[in-house]
């Protein structure tokens, strides 16, 4: 599904450049559950952003489902992202002025989905995640775990084939975090490819493979 080859990301710093990712070469197959680990500043979140096509400022090769992303225009990358990828953020990033149901609807509204279909998908997702009773609440009325649950639901509502999760349990209590990881495991069993960034060995244990980053290099 994902093939990176000699991917570099750097930013200018004074007279030189600071490398955040160096010569990243890796493959991730469809249906895998991969954890990216490493110390702070290793470039984990940046790698995830590159994989999610949120960051386009890099060099090297990136193939996603046989599409040469490195050759694509930004508009085409956005279209590819919209079709296949769902992103779960550490800070949830729910929209404060929208209810839970409206938050779930946002990604669908950007994907030319008909209104009736959107309503149906939102209803199904609320039901699937057991948050029907919370559909009219605002994010500030939910606990951290509930907010992250909604964030995961939002990432999944358009049925992406790849989930990218950046420290999905970083701001959660351990029992809430366990619930989220079990949900990811279940999704992976259903065929969804999952790539997560995590500091937690326990969370990494839910996945099948660990990629370790150190100072921008893949070391394992």
């Amino acid at each position, binding site marked *: 599904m994902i093939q990176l080859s000699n991917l570099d990301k750097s930013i200018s710093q004074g007279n030189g450049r600071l490398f955040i990712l160096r010569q990243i070469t890796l493959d991730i197959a469809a249906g895998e559950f991969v954890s990216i680990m490493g110390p702070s500043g290793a470039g984990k979140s940046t790698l995830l952003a590159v994989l*999610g096509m*949120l960051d386009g400022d890099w060099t090297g090769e990136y193939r996603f489902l046989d599409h040469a992303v490195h050759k694509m225009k930004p508009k085409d990358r956005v279209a590819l*992202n919209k079709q296949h990828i769902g*992103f779960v*953020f550490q*800070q949830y*990033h729910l*929209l404060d002025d929208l209810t839970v149901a409206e938050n779930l609807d*946002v990604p669908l509204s*950007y994907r030319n989905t008909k209104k009736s279909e959107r309503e149906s998908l939102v209803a199904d997702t609320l039901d699937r995640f057991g948050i029907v009773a919370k559909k009219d609440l605002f994010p500030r009325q939910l606990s951290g775990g509930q907010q992250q649950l909604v964030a995961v639901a939002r990432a999944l509502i358009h049925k992406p084939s790849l989930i990218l999760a950046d420290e999905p349990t970083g701001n959660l209590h351990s029992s809430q975090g366990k619930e989220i990881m079990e949900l990811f495991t279940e999704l992976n069993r259903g065929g969804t490819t999952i790539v997560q960034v995590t500091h937690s060995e326990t969370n990494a244990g839910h996945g099948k493979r660990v990629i370790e980053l150190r100072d921008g290099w893949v070391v394992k």
Partner: protein
Amino acid sequence: MGCEMIDTLLQDLRYAVRKLAKSPGFTLGVVVTLALGIGANVAMFSVVDRMLFRPPPLLRDPAVTHRIYLAQTYRGKEQASGYLQYARYVDLTSWTSAFARTAAFTEHDLAVGVGAEAREMRVGIVSASFFGFFDAPPALGRYFTAAEDSPPDGTAVAVLSYAFWKARYGGRSEALGSTLQIGPTVYTIVGVAPEGFAGLWPVQRPVAFIPITSHASAHRPPRDTWWTTYHWMWASMLVQRKPGVSVAAANTDLTNAFLRSYAAQRMESPGLAPAEIARPHALAASVLSERGPNESDFAKVATWVSGVALIVLLIACANVANLLLARALRRRREIAVRLALGVSRARLLSQLFTESVVLALLGGLAGLLVAEWGGAVLRGQFLASGSQVSVLGDVRTLSFGGAAALVAGLLTALAPALQTRRADFAADLKAGAREGTFQRSRSRVALLVLQGALCVALLVGAGLFVRSLRHVRAVPLGYDVDPVLLVDLNMRGVQLDSAHGVALRRDLLETAQAIPEVLHASRQLTVPFWSTSTMELHVAGIDSVHRLGEFALNAVTPEYFATLGTRILRGRGIAIQDAKNAPRAIVVSDAMAKTLWPGRDPIGQCVKVGADTLPCSYVVGVAENIKYQHLGDDPGLFYYLSEAQWHPEQGGLFIRTRGQAAPYAEPIRRRLQQLMPGASYVTVTPLREILGEQTRSWQLGATMFLAFGGLALTLAAIGLYSVMAYNVSQRTQELGVRAALGAQQRDLVRLVVTEGVTLGAAGIAIGVVIALAGGHLLGPLLFEESPHDPLVFGFVAVVLLGVTVLASFVPSRRAARVDPMVALRYE
């Protein structure tokens, strides 16, 4: 305690100044916004105060001093006039007991001086008792006495104004006893009025004051007993109530005297309507003519424009309140910490108000400069040209400016103060590092919608006035205006007998006709919207012609209709065969023909002009109707006599030139002036200028509403832009999340613009309701224009919507460029 309060105030002041100095851009923006709003209001106050509120300087007892108006009912409609006959003034003075003093007065522009130094200047023409109304002892010499102001001729003595005495005579006492020609008469100077004295005319100050009787005797025909007859209405009357006499009692006293005087007039003119029909009554009104029953359209427009200026100030305040509110929202955490550290809410509010008031006072100072310089245009439009009005030198206007600034400061502080009271500071402390995270503020939205609504109301007013002006300009007058000049003769005391008067006018006409640029020239006795003449008419089979309406006349030469472009509909115009001893000819207007001979051929009908015993004037033609008194409903009852058969020694000329007449005015004046004897002179005025006075109130309304409406629109657009830009900057994270979730640039642009347009639409809807509700108040000032004209409303809505889209579009472009990665790391 008092010292503590002063210390606290000084501390707040220092803190406010420091904070404002740290944000110079913000401070400048607020000060400029308030300066425009306050400046507009101060400028309008300087006009309206002089028109409607400020009593003339040095007037002894303004509260008990009145100008008299006489009202009569004519054809079922009551009409009041501030003008009366000298005989009436004498009657009212003699037959009332409610007044401590009375005076007669008028004012004219008269030629002052001789030769090259002669200039037309404003002269106060007053009775000797006039000066007793003022607390103004003469600076030099004396005022004229009652004996010097006795009819029929009075005495040729004059009192100079202080300013004129200083300018013309260098302030020397030798001016006393010297002579000065004013109009046709040479006056001896007997006194100088004190500095600041301007009679009833503080805006266009007279240079001198002359006895009313001397002026009358110089301007009336030699055998005219103007002081005992009632045919010449030319003066006004001033009265001062006795202590303890109410206005109602004074009015009753005046009315009784007026009834007695009216009866005396009927003995002289039996054709006058009986008192039971005319219902004459008198009233004592404000000294300021614009507050009397005949408030001019000018004054009405001035009042409206003041309201408009106030709305502009409200919009400016709403703008500033929005900016201050945004600052307060950004400082929520800081304020929460201060409260946690023990500051009281009252102290917090005091700081907020101090900051707002400092901004408003700075805005007020800048506003005074705006009013002084920019307001000169306003004053030039509403007050007479050459009026000496200054904002910076006037205590009343400065006080108004200060009060307006204070009110603006309090208003602009209100929203952030309320926000401070309402906020949940515990939650703000728990917000973590997310200081100033976007929070929709209902107050900001409400202020924005209010601005939009007020803008719509102003722009609708502007649109209605513009359409009125277009309608006015499209009114068919029945004659051409732009290619026509009016030539008026000012004899300035040069006495010509009838034969010489006729010869002079013949020479002027022939000379004018010989000028190459002149297409046609004609004699005239009256001028539309400038002078009217009416005579008694007698028509066979009609009992009382004057009951059918007021018939006005002109006496003209054969080229008149070609000169003015008035069409002859039937028969012929005045022709060369209508000479002095020929059968009398008359051309009537179409309306007059239909009124006097409905359904019959008017050609050949007999009309006796002046008296039933005079020979017939036979109708030889029917001319199209003309507008000569009102642009609106003018009955058009008009007729033309041959000048050779009707006072050829009076009147002036009309001249028609190739193209626009205005450029030819001065060369023609110089050419004709060569024919004038002695000190007499001609004035040549484009007819467009004369007509311009009629359209001036609509012109003014359109200009002022457009100017202020444009200012309001600019302020509202700036307000909307600043709110949208602020919103976008505060929503960076949200926009980044949306981009990460798949939003494209156009989705983000649409998001921002839709929000702006929604606010704009709400403002438009409310503004339309306000404009519809207030339309009936504006209605009387419009001309053939409905105050609910859907075209105007529609156009304004489209304009405001367009401005809203534009003001939202720029920030939306910034929203579209949000980098999701930067946004997601925003906190």
